[in-house]
């Protein structure tokens, strides 16, 4: 492996995305990656992927959340490395440990509590009425609460909440 992984939780990282070991740093993925091409911090040599993969604490990097999960890197990689899959593993760790952006946490909560990621605005409500569209308010949303309980998400959210309250005290 040519990538130097300094990340302390290296083994946990590799467990979730073993394919990253096959990366030979050819840079093909970077040619199609929107984050490498347009993200402020990167050029085609210093790519988004190397940055995340070689960072000491990748889950702490807010850049992790800029990935569009567009899979272009996955489609072009000659080594079948699946970067978005590894990023996903890192994002999950970031989320569990309270290092995901607040916007992500509130999106997750909004989906679980209302069944919608985006709240209905008054303008949209008026427009829906004007266009004679049927109402939109997902039914049986408490199903999602049951799901969150069974997957362990509810517990993760409780821990995050407790952590945040402690930090504020």
């Amino acid at each position, binding site marked *: 492996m040519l990538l130097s992984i300094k990340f302390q939780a290296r083994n946990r990282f590799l467990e979730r995305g073993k394919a990253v070991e096959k990366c030979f740093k050819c840079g093909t993925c970077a040619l*199609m990656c*929107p*984050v490498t*091409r*347009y*993200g*402020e911090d990167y050029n085609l040599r210093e790519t988004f992927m190397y940055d995340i993969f070689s960072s000491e604490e990748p889950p702490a990097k*807010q850049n992790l*959340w*800029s*990935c*569009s*999960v*567009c*899979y*272009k890197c*996955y*489609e*072009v990689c000659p080594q079948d490395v699946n970067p978005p899959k590894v*990023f*996903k593993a890192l994002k*999950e760790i970031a*989320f569990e440990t309270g290092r*995901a*952006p607040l*916007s*992500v*946490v509130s*999106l*997750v909560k909004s*989906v*679980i509590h209302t*069944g*919608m*990621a*985006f*709240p*209905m*605005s008054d303008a*949209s409500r008026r*427009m*829906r009425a004007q*266009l004679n*569209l049927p109402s*939109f308010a*997902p*039914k*049986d*949303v408490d*199903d*999602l609460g*049951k*799901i*969150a*309980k*069974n*997957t*362990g*998400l509810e517990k*993760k959210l409780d821990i995050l909440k407790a952590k945040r309250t402690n930090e504020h005290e």
Partner: protein
Amino acid sequence: MSTNNRYAFFRGCLIPARYPHFEYVARTILPQLGIQLLDIDEFTCCADPIQFRGADELTWLAIAARNICLAEEEDINIVCLCNGCINTLATANYLLKKEPRLRDRMNRILADTGHQFEGTIETKHYLQAIMDDIGIERLRSYVKIPLDGLKVATHTGCHLTSPQDILRFDDPLDPSVLDSLVAVLGAEPVDYDLKALCCGVGFSLSGQTVASSHLLKDKLENMRQFGADCITVACPFCFQQFDLGQQTTSRKYELDFKLPVVDYLQILGFAMGYTLEEMQYDSHRVKDKNFESKLKRG
């Protein structure tokens, strides 16, 4: 008309909550093509394949599975209007059909909700439904007023094409299906270089507005360079990037042109004889006289 397929109508949440006019256009156009829409009030957000999936994949999968179950219980396939929705639904359906152990685990998670994943239906984006049920050749018969002289830059978007083995719609690196669908309407798809480049939604979601505008500038200029009069998308997130994002980008980079953005169902509607107003063009931010004059009917 030989096709008459009923589908569970998966509206997602960005469209009903922010762009209801696309829901209106879908309800106007799709049934005329024989794609009948059944509303299921229990459908929730898909959930999204970028942020929610990143935060908690198991819950993401369970929410998608529950949505699929609702259509299974009606014994009909799902049709949706958004690349994010189809990416989530198709991926979940694929994984849960393929991996029995994952399905068992999922059904234990779903047990309290009374739903169980059986793996009996298919999930489709409306472009897939049009290709599968009608096909390019038969679509031609719906064209009343060919869109002669209109040059269109298509943006298929990433999440409808990748991963290719799951979505099975088009080549993610060189997409051409949407071009064929535009060409059959009499319009001319332009073969611009940056066609496969992502719309940059990841930047907007993560608040990186500078990067988002920079990407959009390159992509818009490239479309223009190849002569485009407008952009066609098939996803509300891509739409938001190109429409709302174009306003910001134009101001920042002082672009001297405008490229109105229309959903494929709108441009299909124009070819079927609907007016700009009827296809809710007024709800869009970016408007352009040149584009409008090409759609004026004499």
